[in-house]
Every structure is written in structure tokens, then in C-alpha cells.
């Protein structure tokens, strides 16, 4: 068991049942610290359900989620964020009416120690925290290349930058594990290229463990070290990119067998 406790993120036998439909069942996941792990599968395979279970949006019908050995199953999303799991969303969910900088600042809010009273009366501790957060937020924006648009409304950004902003916002919570839900969706090849570089960069710079959902095969195969393939809520394969690419079941799930293939 000591080995399990060393892993960054562990899912044990997760089952998520919606009425009569098991969106995910018998789902196991072992991600070592510092890994860049992929979760792939055709549409409707249950990938986002897995993300929602890990990030606390859904409470699994069965199974456990462990973060560095600690059981975090069934905690509320904000508690899980505080424990060190941050995520992005498949359909971008930015705070549209806030500026780019404010979006990142919200990510810092969970580490605030100054109370509401201190904030209202502008006590030294609050002011110190606020200026620290401002500085780290600006640094984060520089890291993802959004420093020039820091005072734009988030909704005014082009699509690719919105994706980057979501990642920056997630990083602001200082996570240990980052979940990226289709970060390259809707991006053109050049943007995808930049994004892959960004993901590799932030993993090294922030000592992150990253779990990535992706449809874009190029992204997963290029940057993920290992991956799990889901189909109809079941794991059908697990391994390195080259193993997955030659796996019969995966090829069948993506290209044939009645499932509509993407691209």
C-alpha cells in the first residue's frame, strides 16, 4: 500500500451510475507524481465524467479517489481545489465579465488568510496579501503570454487565449495535480503546437502532475507518457503511446465497430 500512497492521483474502482446508465465503471487510474498522463476515448466514453468525479462535481456511486494517499472522495469541489487539484473545462468557463487579471486573482482567493473585516478596513495583512497576489498573478500571465491583455475582459479574448487563461487561472490555485479537459479543442495547428509547449513548460516549472483529456491524437501521442483509453465507460487499454497506437481494441473503438470516429 505504501506504493499507492506515493502516487499523485489514484482512482480505485470508480463507478458512476446515472439512473440505469453506468457512465463509468471499474475505472482504475494510477498516476505517479510528475507524470503527464492522457485519458482518451471516443465521444461519450465517460472521460469528462471521470474528471467530474475527481474534481468533486460528482460523487461516485462506488470507488475512491486518492490524492497523494489522502482520500478525497465526495469532498466538495472547492475543498478539492484547496487540497490541490485544479481543472479546466471542456467548454471554456471563464468569469466573462471580469478582466483577465481578475480571473487569475480569483484563483488565488482560496489561499487568502485575511478575513472579510480585514479586507473591508484594508488592514496591513490584507494589503500585503493583495499585493503578493497581484504580483504572482502578473507573473502567471507572463508565463502563459497574456500579460499584454491583462486588463481586457475575459470574454473579449480570442479563443486560443481564453484556453490559456483557463490554464493560468487553474495554476493560480497552486495545484499539485492539474486536470485539463480537452485543452486543444477548437485550436488551429499552430495554436495546438504552442499549447503543447505550454503544458510541458508548466509541468516542469510548477512541479505538476497533469491528467489530460484529449481528442486531438497528435497532442496526446506527442506529450503524454502513458495513457488510459476509455470506451463506453470501460477501460479498454492502458499503456505508452506506441502501445496504444498498435492496440487492436483501441483502433476498433476509434475507427470501427459502430462507433462514429472523429476526424
Amino acid at each position, binding site marked *: 500500500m505504501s506504493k499507492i500512497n506515493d502516487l499523485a492521483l489514484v482512482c480505485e474502482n470508480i463507478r458512476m451510475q446515472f439512473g440505469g446508465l453506468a457512465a463509468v465503471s471499474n475505472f482504475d487510474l494510477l498516476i505517479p507524481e510528475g507524470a503527464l498522463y492522457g485519458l482518451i476515448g471516443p465521444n461519450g466514453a465517460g472521460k469528462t465524467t471521470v474528471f467530474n468525479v475527481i474534481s468533486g462535481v460528482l460523487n461516485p456511486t462506488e470507488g475512491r479517489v486518492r490524492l497523494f494517499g489522502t482520500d478525497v472522495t465526495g469532498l466538495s469541489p472547492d475543498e478539492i481545489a484547496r487540497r490541490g487539484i485544479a481543472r479546466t473545462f471542456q467548454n471554456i468557463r471563464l468569469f466573462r*465579465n471580469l478582466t483577465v487579471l481578475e480571473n487569475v486573482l480569483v*484563483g488565488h*482567493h482560496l489561499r487568502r488568510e485575511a478575513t472579510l473585516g480585514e479586507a473591508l478596513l484594508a488592514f496591513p495583512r490584507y494589503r500585503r496579501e493583495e499585493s503578493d497576489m497581484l504580483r504572482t498573478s502578473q507573473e502567471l500571465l507572463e508565463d502563459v503570454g497574456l500579460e499584454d491583455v491583462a486588463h481586457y475582459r475575459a470574454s473579449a479574448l480570442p479563443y486560443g487565449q481564453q484556453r490559456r487563461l483557463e490554464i493560468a487561472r487553474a495554476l*493560480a490555485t497552486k495545484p499539485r495535480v492539474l486536470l485539463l479537459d480537452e485543452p486543444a479543442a477548437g485550436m488551429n495547428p499552430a495554436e495546438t503546437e504552442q499549447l503543447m509547449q505550454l503544458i510541458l513548460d508548466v509541468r516542469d516549472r510548477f512541479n505538476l502532475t497533469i491528467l489530460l483529456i484529449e481528442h486531438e491524437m497528435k497532442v496526446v501521442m506527442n506529450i503524454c507518457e502513458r495513457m488510459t483509453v476509455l470506451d463506453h465507460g470501460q477501460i479498454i487499454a492502458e499503456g505508452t503511446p506506441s502501445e496504444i497506437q498498435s492496440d487492436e481494441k483501441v483502433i476498433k473503438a476509434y475507427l470501427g465497430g459502430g462507433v462514429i470516429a472523429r476526424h
Partner: protein
Amino acid sequence: MTGNRSNNFVRKAGIALALLIAFYLCLFWVQTGWDVYKVRILNLSAIYIGITLGLNLCNGFAGQFSLGIAGFMAVGAYTTALLTMSPQTKAAVFFIDPLIWPLNSIQWGFLPALLMAGLVSGLVGFAVGAPAIRFRDDYLGITTLGFAEIIRVVFTNTRTITNGALGLKGIPPHTDLYWSWTFALVCVLLMVRLTNSSYGRALKAIRDDEVAAEAMGVNLFYHKCLAFVISAMMAGVGGGLLGNLITTIDPNMFRFPLTFTVLMMAVLGGLGSITGSVIAATLVTVAMEVLRVLEEPRVILGIFLPGIPGMRMVVFSIALMVVILFYPKGFMGDRELGLDSFRNLAARFRRTFLRKQV
């Protein structure tokens, strides 16, 4: 560098103090020089500014569509009234069912009574808000509206505390311009500090996307309750000031139209704008009085026109529709009118001159 900064601070504090003194001198001038009717309208404006800001905090900044303001105002108004009325007046007013002990024998000063009103309505706000904020949008609106009605019905029936439908009369007229405008000022400062703080950003994040806010570690329950309770407290203190201004209150004052009036002020000014609320609350309060002219019988071109009661509300609704047509997000949207907006305007001009962009 530090010397510069402290100099800057001293200068800012000096300006603020000077403005404050000028503000109160103005109030002194109005309070002593103007006629009672105008002073009354200005009092009402200030009270509505505070209450509208409270509603705006909950509905505009935090995006929690609450319609319970009238209920919280009732709680505040009754608390203040019962604490400030003299035992003799209470004995005279409660002639059917006597007031319960200890309320029948106490008389507090206005300030502690107002603070108590804020506290009590804050507690009621929490009791109402904590279960209700699980709902969203219109469902939350309906739930809070129901709670406000429940408060009113309870007040109609607890005759030994509220004197039931007879209401309270002879409330000491403590509210003057100093009280009401200090309240408005405190509300404005509170809102400015709160909405620009990290907590305010979290509220706006909840408004924009609840799911994402929670995923970023924002505790939804805490922050929604925060908005709800502060909003209720502001409404409670405002209600207390209102009761001691008009000196007589009864449960029917706090029906839904009162909530609607405040909501209209907030929407007209722009949900999410402090200056918008201030402008709209003042404008609507003044307009309500100015339009009374329409309801008086008068002779135009030799034709006698009888006054039509309610005519001003018709005109008012038309004006409201026209405004919403041209300013769908209210006068200010979610922007603020301040020094910064002038600076931004200047910066925008400069940008357009330097290079063609945006």
C-alpha cells in the same frame, strides 16, 4: 519612495477629510434652510441609496436573484421602532393586546437601535438565505419572495410584538439628513471596499460562473451567505431609518411593490454598478415626487382635467420602458463613474490617435 507614498497618503486623506466636511456642511445647510418637503425627499433618497446598494450586492454583484428586500426592511423597521419608542407611547399604541416584556419597558438610543436592526435583519437574512441559496435564478427569486411575504404575514399576526395590522404609530422622528446620508455614505464605502476586494471578486466570479468559481476553490455557501446577509443588514438599517422618518409603519407597507421599487432602482442604475445605484435611487425617488403633479386636478387651455390617481405610475412605467429600451443594462451597466473612467476615456483617445486598434 516610502516618503513619497506617505505624502501621497496624507494628501489623499486630506482631500477625503475636506470632502467629508464639505458634505456635512451641505447637509447642515439643507437641513436648516430647505423646506420640510424637500428635506423629506432627500432623506428618502439617501435611505433608498443604501437599500438599493444592498440589493445590488446580492442581485448584481453576486448574481443571486433575491426578492426578499421588503421583508428585511420590515424586520429592521420594526426592530428600530420598538426599541426607540417610549414606554408611554407603546402603552398607548398597543391598546388591544399589550406589548410583551421586556420590549414594553425599554427605550434605546437611535444608534444602538439601528445597529440592532442591522443585526436582527442580518440574522433573519442568514436564516432565510442559508437554505434558499441552494436555488438559482428565478427559483431563488420565488423562494425569497415567499419568505418576505411570510415575514409580513407573521408581523400581521404577532399582535403582542408588532401590534398586528394596526401597525406602530408615534415612532420618534429621529431620522434626519445626517443619519440618512451617513447611512448612504457608509453603504457606498462598504460596497466600494467589498466589491474591489478579493471577496468581491469571488462574488463576481460566482455570478459569472458558479461551477468554475467552485472549481477554483471559492466556497459557494460562505460567499453567497455573505452577500445575502450584508444585503439584508443594509435593508434592515434602511428600513429602520425609514420607519423613524415617516413615524408610522404597518405590515402592508412592506408588500412586494416595495421590493419592486428597490429592484427597479438597481436595474435602472445597472446591476453591478455602485454609482449606477446611487444615481438611479436618487433619480427614482425624486421623480416619484415630481410626477405627483400629474395626479392633481388642473385646468389646461380652459379645459378642466380631473386628477387621476395612479397616473404618475403609468408615466413612470412608460419612462422605465423607454430607459430599458435604450439602456438594456441600466444607466451604468456594470461600470462605475469615477476618476478612473475619465482617465480611461483619455487613454482611449490617446490610443486611437497613436495607432488604429480596437
